[in-house]
């Protein structure tokens, strides 16, 4: 890991310094760019493993830089925002960002987020596996069954598909839009997105020991849902 490159795109030299110090332990090289255009250029040449992108850039909107980076790079993208706006967070995750940190953040928090992102990126790909185990839940994607503690859980076809998408992306926050697209392929997002919340509520009643204190399907307020990884409590 220590031989990797990180890139910071931020117009504030002091924030670049702070982020750069925080990343120095984990990355061999930390590059800096002060505008979206410069960031895109450096990213395409240097192939960084991690890109930290500030949203308050003078030359381009965060979502457009994010989508531009994603078009040519597999780097992990961590967004820094001064706005505590969940709508913005969802937009950026939809545009290909991997995670989002709100200013002001502590260096400790930033480091922890980066390490969590890297761990997740190294996890074995569950797509294609026929059984997915997570805590007491065991899903068989061929037989299309779900067991909790060895007991079968009865799900409707839509609920089953929803759990399958969430479980195969465990640890990753899925936005409402991403979940909707994956589960209800081909339907209009706007009118029917309420189904998602209703189905999640129904599923929780079936798989969570206490639906008011969910351990599997975690709500990311205003953004979407995340299936907890087995190691999370």
């Amino acid at each position, binding site marked *: 890991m220590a031989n990797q490159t990180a890139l910071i795109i931020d117009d*504030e030299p002091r924030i670049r310094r702070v982020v750069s110090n925080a990343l120095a332990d984990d990355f061999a090289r930390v590059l800096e760019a002060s505008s979206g255009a410069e960031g895109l250029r450096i990213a395409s040449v240097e192939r960084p493993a991690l890109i930290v992108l500030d*949203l308050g850039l003078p030359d381009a909107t965060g979502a457009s830089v994010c989508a531009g980076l994603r078009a040519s790079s597999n780097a992990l993208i961590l967004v820094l925002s*001064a706005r505590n706006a969940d709508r913005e967070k969802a937009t950026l995750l939809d545009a290909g960002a991997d995670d989002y940190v709100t200013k002001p953040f502590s260096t400790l928090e930033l480091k922890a987020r980066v390490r969590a992102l890297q761990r997740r990126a190294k996890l074995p790909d569950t797509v294609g596996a026929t059984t997915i185990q997570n805590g007491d839940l065991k899903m068989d994607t061929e037989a299309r069954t779900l067991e909790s503690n060895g007991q079968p859980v009865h799900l409707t076809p839509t609920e089953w598909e929803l759990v399958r998408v969430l479980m195969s992306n465990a640890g990753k926050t899925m936005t409402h839009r991403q979940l909707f697209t994956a589960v209800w392929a081909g339907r209009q997002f706007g009118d029917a997105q309420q*189904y998602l*919340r*209703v189905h999640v*509520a129904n599923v929780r009643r079936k798989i969570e020991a206490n639906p*008011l204190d969910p351990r599997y399907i975690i709500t990311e*307020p205003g953004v979407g849902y995340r299936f907890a990884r087995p190691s999370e409590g």
Partner: protein
Amino acid sequence: MVWLLAFLGLALAALGLVAVRPLLGEAHVALIFLLVVLGSSAAGGRVLGITVALAAFVVFDFFFLPPFNTLLVRNPFDWLVLVVFLITSIVAAQLLYKARSERAAVERAEALREADKLKDALLASLSHDLRTPLTTIKALAHELQPLGDERALIIEEQADRLNRLVTDLLDVGRLDGGALHLDIQLNAVDDLLGAVGQQVSGKPDQDRLKISLDDPASLSFGRFDFVHSLRILGNLVDNAFKYSPPDSPIILTGGVEGKDVVFRVVDAGNGVPADERDAIFTAFYRRPGTGAGAHSTGLGLSIARGLAKAQGGTLVYRERDGGGTMFELRLPAGTP
């Protein structure tokens, strides 16, 4: 002035037409007058248009339908022409008026949207400009802590405090300026209660918060903005943690009552005296003797009530048997 011009136009048209009267059919006259009516309503609005239409009706009858220069009409079919002329003129004036007022409404809505966008952009850049230096201060203080200077910790705490104040003030700005973004969706009561619990988890005394449903057997839904409602309940629960005795329970419940979903936050604190029950929802109000300096901006309850109202809900303080404090949030219920 417009009225004068309109009637002058009608008079001129009538004079001109009278001069060539023998050559004219009724249709010629009707079309020319219709033009005058439309011109008048375009320039002077619906009332003028209809008034000119009525005047033109009389002039038409008087000068152009035989016998001339009387209001009598010889041929019954001429009545038909007259009445159709009148109806056409009035309907045309009316349609013109409607089209114009619709366009004006669209323009007004457009201007409002523009203003909202501007407010949103202003608040966003304000937020960026205030938080960027706070980030640097906080991060540098954090870097200094391992060196053992306790002042670094105080700097970081104060940066956090300033950040809370910035967040609250920006929210007040959004509420007052009408720049609040609402995302009203059908949400499960389970989901909102669970999210409040999640927010509290990690607090050393998190076990004080007891969350339950009024009717655990049924799944209920409301139509509300999830993030704003979470903020409201989060503020209420935070207050309960701050102002009730350590180790005393804090109870959060949710359920449906009639057309509302109702959430209640109850604690074993001292309650609020009757004469302060409205005042506590005013911005910057500090209850005498609570000494709530360091961790309060005095904005939490006022923001909470503003967010409740914006979603068509209410937030009130309720008297509770046996003392303590109870806040009640009502939001519209919904069904899938």
